[in-house]
């Protein structure tokens, strides 16, 4: 499985990277494409995604099911099986390109330089090994230390993420932990090698709201302590608003809007972002009489609509003639630091937001 495939290196971005060179950002993803050939057709789960992230900053990736957000995170970690996924584009992590790198080189970075927290901490931990064993394993694969040293480190980490009596709990199995404690243990495991990039894929979706608050606090505190770069993948706009510096809204495998958290919540420019904001009931506002849902359902990735993928659900597509149904909008910088992929003219978008959307939120 760990065999190198020379063709991958050539087809991948090795040659491209030569022309553009290493970026200055800590993490830069350029035109990432992750396609899965299936019997029903090519599933373009991620189709041309670009973003950057600096140390100590948090990027929130927001999207619904099938938007490609989780596929992206697995792609950065190099966890897609090259036999059933075509990955192209560039992923630069601290000066190293990962898409064209050998599987073994990427593996060595996984867990050490970049780590991941998953959604369901129960199914994400091996049921047959103790929590401590799993942390020790993560630590020892990258650090040449004895078992007892690694064990001490595991106890340390468990204490650091707020697990009471870590010296005892270290020998417990995952099923003996509560949901919140399990997610803390998962975080301890992810942080055991002091990674510089932490990807959290819906880290609190399976948790209760009071526990979610604890975990979000913990992630925030740990980020301050470790100065890690964090990618927070979620469908919950509230979580993103609390934690992120920048936001990337994904729809059908592509970026719909990419902006600072302030712009994204206070001056969003994409009808899909408007729709998301209008869909959720909010505790911080007067109760609205009615929610403003987006009509229809997220598209199947095998049959992505022609033109703008969002057009069948968009209330404003007719303002563009038939452009939305025929031509795919490119992601452009509409305002400084605010990118959006939509055919509507900027002025029109600002007007709609101010007059139609914002008052109803």
């Amino acid at each position: 499985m760990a065999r190198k495939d020379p063709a991958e290196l050539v087809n991948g971005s090795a040659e491209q990277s030569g022309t553009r060179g290493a970026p200055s950002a800590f993490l830069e993803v350029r035109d990432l494409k992750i396609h899965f050939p299936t019997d029903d057709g090519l599933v373009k789960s991620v189709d041309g995604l670009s973003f950057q992230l600096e140390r100590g900053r948090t990027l929130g990736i927001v999207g619904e099911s099938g938007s490609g957000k989780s596929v992206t995170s697995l792609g950065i970690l190099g966890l897609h099986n090259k036999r059933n996924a075509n990955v192209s584009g560039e992923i630069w992590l601290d000066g190293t390109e990962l898409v064209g790198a050998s599987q073994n080189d990427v593996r060595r970075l996984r867990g050490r330089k970049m780590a991941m927290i998953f959604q369901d901490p129960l199914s994400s931990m091996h049921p047959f090994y103790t929590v401590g064993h799993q942390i020790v394993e993560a630590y020892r694969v990258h650090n040449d230390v004895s078992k007892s040293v690694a064990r001490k480190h595991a106890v340390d980490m468990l204490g650091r993420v707020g697990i009471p009596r870590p010296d005892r709990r270290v020998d417990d199995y995952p099923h003996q932990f509560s949901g919140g404690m399990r997610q803390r243990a998962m975080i301890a495991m992810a942080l055991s090698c002091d990674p510089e990039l932490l990807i959290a894929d819906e880290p609190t979706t399976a948790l209760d709201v009071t526990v979610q608050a604890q975990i979000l606090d913990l992630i925030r505190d740990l980020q301050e302590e470790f100065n890690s770069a964090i990618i927070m993948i979620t469908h919950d706009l509230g979580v993103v608003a609390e934690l992120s510096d920048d936001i990337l809204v994904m729809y059908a495998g592509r970026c719909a809007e990419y902006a600072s958290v302030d712009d994204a919540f206070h001056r969003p420019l994409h009808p899909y972002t408007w729709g998301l904001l209008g869909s959720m009931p909010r505790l911080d506002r007067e109760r609205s009489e009615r929610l403003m849902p987006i009509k229809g359902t997220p598209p199947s990735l095998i049959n992505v609509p022609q033109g703008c993928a969002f057009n069948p659900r968009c209330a404003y597509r007719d303002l563009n003639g038939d452009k939305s149904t025929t031509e795919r909008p490119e992601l452009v910088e509409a305002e400084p630091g605010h990118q959006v992929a939509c055919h509507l003219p900027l002025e029109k978008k600002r007007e709609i937001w101010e007059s139609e959307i914002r008052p109803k939120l």
Partner: protein
Amino acid sequence: MVAFIVRRLLGAVGLLLIISAVTFAIFFLVPRAAGVTSDDIAGRFAGKQPDAATLAAIKDRFGFDDPVPVQYGKFLKAIVVGDTYDTGTEKIHCPAPCLGYSFRTNQSVTDQIVDRAPITFMIAIGAAVLWVIVGVSIGVLSALRRGTIFDRAAMGIALAGVSLPVFFTGLLSLAFVVHRWNLLPEVNYEGLSDNPFNLILPWICLAFLYAALYARLTRAGMLETMNEDYIRTARAKGLPEKTVVFKHGLRATLTPIMTVFGLDIGLLLGGAIITEKTFSIPGLGQLALDGVNQSDLPVVLGATMVAALFIVLANLVVDILYGVVDPRVRHS
């Protein structure tokens, strides 16, 4: 855990009682219903042309005319404390566990079983070692190389293995490997003193069937396990692929296979009937088969009880092992 084991043991005893009662009923009541009299049974025991007095003595000695529940009770009692038979001229003591005497050969059934069990053991254990190693390895490789030529070929052969009965592969291999090509000597195994490698052909034939089964099971299990979230986590930690597969993947895959293995080996230890018949090996299966063919009730009962005992024990061991392997079972 102790309560669990005790409860399972009590359950096992209960199960054995039921099995013995059912077997007793089948081999005792059904022939009676079909018109076989106690004279006929005694006649089988006495040999050719017995006189009436001999028959009566035999019936009296074995209690053939007692009510069936009484006979069943005696049968059970003999297993627990042994029995003493009075032939008129001498008293024969049959120590516990006494399963009675064969109608045909007049031998103690217990002794016959003790004689033959090692032979069946050798067949089963040898084949089991083979099939577990071969079956699981092929299953794992197939799963990891899903869709490749290797996978397809292996699964094709496995399908054949599952479909072909041992008497077919056995007779075929006897005909070619032994008789035509003279690659291996005749299968000749009658006890522990014989060279166990004489059993190589039965091992291979029996293992072929089971290995095919296990390869398919392992492959399916492995494919499922490798899609589990914790495997993704193991990879995300940066573990080398072989650790992911063999430590995280295989352990979870093998746990359910352990259950199947327990049942299979339990079943085989009670007599690998087809294999023994095909290769003419005098194991427990042959014993049971001969017993049935000759309506030799004590032998059939004994063989059935031993087979049931093995299955029940194997089940018990598997259940306990499950607790050892899977901490979730242990703590529940």
